[in-house]
């Protein structure tokens, strides 16, 4: 937890900085709007956390989000009664993609970077092959409610985010979470002490696929149907997780910090917008900050470990 602390400090600092420029930001409506905007990335980061802490990568989530949204639009095609079956289908599709990623990585021993890169190519190719080059159809109003509607004052997406966060924290505290971290830290030692490494890693990929499905449901409602909806999300999710102090290579970090990393990234975008650094320079600032944050984390780490050892 000590390692996770810096990201919460950074997040708090950013939120204060935003509030200084825009005093309305801390009012409930504006703040909930911020959380709502951040929800898809936070959910993706939570899913990506499980894969990264187990020692793998999932590069396929961005194209999976696009695929899910495009598939949903084509199947629903504006009809209300198709909404719920299609939602179930999206969840199942996310889980299946995760299962395939996990099985190929663990059983066929393909590096997950390549497995999920292959999945990225396959998904983005297959979906547009099926729809003939551009998204077709439309989402129903019920479907869009999940992304843009609200229950009383609280947006649905914020409620979904809270549920996802609670489930993610619960999963890391459960036996599964411990075996997953053990597998990521040293898979051989974990295997020798009875962890079914292949199985827990596959489940981690399935969680990531599931999170992509949920994020797609929110984004589809929030941002609408386009071929660009998931573009670059895989890198943003990985960046968020790493910002949260989770180590690429596995075995260290907490899911709460990973989600805080996603909030931080989103807060950073908001702040850059407020200062009028939108569009062109945004990626540059983002790049510098990511490198700096990870570099600071890397420098701090050995000292923290020495302190713990003494």
């Amino acid at each position, binding site marked *: 937890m000590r390692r996770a602390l810096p990201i919460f400090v950074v997040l708090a600092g950013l939120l204060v900085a935003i509030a200084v420029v825009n005093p309305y930001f801390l009012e409930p409506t504006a703040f909930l709007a911020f959380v709502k905007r951040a929800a898809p990335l936070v959910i993706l980061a939570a899913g990506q956390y499980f894969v990264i802490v187990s020692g793998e990568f999932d590069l396929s989530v961005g194209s999976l989000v696009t695929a899910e949204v495009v598939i949903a639009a084509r199947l629903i095609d504006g009809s209300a009664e198709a909404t719920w079956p299609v939602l179930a289908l999206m969840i199942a599709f996310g889980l299946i993609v995760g299962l395939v990623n996990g099985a190929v990585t663990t059983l066929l021993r393909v*590096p997950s970077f390549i497995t999920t890169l292959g999945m990225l*190519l396959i998904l983005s190719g297959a979906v547009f092959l099926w729809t003939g080059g551009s998204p077709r159809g439309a989402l129903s109003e019920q479907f869009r409610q999940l992304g843009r509607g609200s229950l009383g004052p609280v947006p649905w997406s914020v409620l979904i985010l809270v549920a996802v966060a609670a489930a993610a924290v619960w999963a890391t505290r459960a036996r599964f979470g411990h075996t997953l971290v053990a597998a990521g830290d040293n898979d051989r030692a974990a295997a020798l002490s009875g962890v079914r490494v292949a199985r827990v890693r596959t489940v981690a990929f399935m969680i990531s696929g599931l999170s992509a499905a949920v994020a797609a449901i929110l984004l589809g409602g929030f941002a609408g149907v386009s071929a660009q909806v998931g573009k670059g999300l895989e890198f943003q999710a990985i960046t968020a997780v790493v910002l949260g102090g989770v180590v690429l290579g596995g075995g260290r970090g907490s899911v709460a910090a990973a989600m805080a990393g996603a909030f931080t990234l989103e807060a950073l975008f908001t702040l850059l917008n407020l200062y009028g650094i939108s569009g062109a320079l945004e*990626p540059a600032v983002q*790049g510098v900050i990511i490198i700096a944050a*990870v570099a600071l984390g890397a420098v701090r780490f050995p000292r923290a470990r020495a302190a713990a050892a003494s």
Partner: protein
Amino acid sequence: MTQQLKLGRVPAGGSLLRRISADRPARPVYVALVLLVVLGWLVFALDGGTFLGQENIVGIQQRSAALGIVAVGQTLVILAGSLDLSVAYLISLTSLVTAEIMAGADSGVPAAVAAALAVSALIGLVNGLIVTRLRVHAFIATLGVALVVRGALDARYDGPAGSVPESFQHLGYDRIGPLPVSALLWAAVAAGAWLLLSRTRLGYRIYAVGGDAEVARLSGVRTERVVVIAHVLCSVCAGIAGLLLASRLGAGAPTVGTDGGYDLESIAAVVLGGTALAGGRGGVAGTVGGVLLLAVLDSIFNQLEVNSFAKDVVRGVILVAALAIYARGRRTR
């Protein structure tokens, strides 16, 4: 290292092909390449084209040259246990630097080439220093640098800029006999990297650092320096690809690198060639095979007029299948 000793015992009269075939991880990709060429020949024969005709072979060479040059550089960083996701934006950047400095005049050519190579070497140095000194994982470090370069490109350019004089366009389109100049350039870069890896101290050190950085360090290798040099060489290769693309387009373009997907595609070509993503095992010969494999596949797709989305699907399947086969081979050995 044993591989290198075996290579040394190949009789001096042995052809290049035999030497390449002695490069063990590269063997499957060439077997696959031969099979694919046979398949291509059949497809073209049935479809009424000539696969082994000059036109098609030149087309394959021209298409693969830019990717090939980037992939050779990517091989060096991957062998050293690192990775470079910034090459795509760097290619765009160098194409713009080249075209802006040339500004359509012949006199600007030497300065522009020097500037493009210097810029790319600088970016490589930054990548390498961030990875080694700041100890940022290469994935994040090069992704971050890629974002910075992208920001600089977005801020300055909306579309193609600068122009390249006609004399420089020879690089992209001319042929010497049946061989395009661009393919010769690729061959020269690949041969240089092959010599570097198999004949020089630095080459051995790259393998050593990629195999096990700690062991290499304890045996007296300055591991950080090796990684930095690998990054600089990789970026220079991307810079050369940028020059080549500028000469083809006749101008610089801010999206030429990302449109080509050179970052992930170059990594795909490297691992298709049997180089381990974790570093320390593989070589340039495999990468050349990997790039040619992708290019031959492309030309078959073109002949069959396959939809570009289907191409992506097939590429993804081939990539994963190839790596599964390699993993199987490693386990049984």
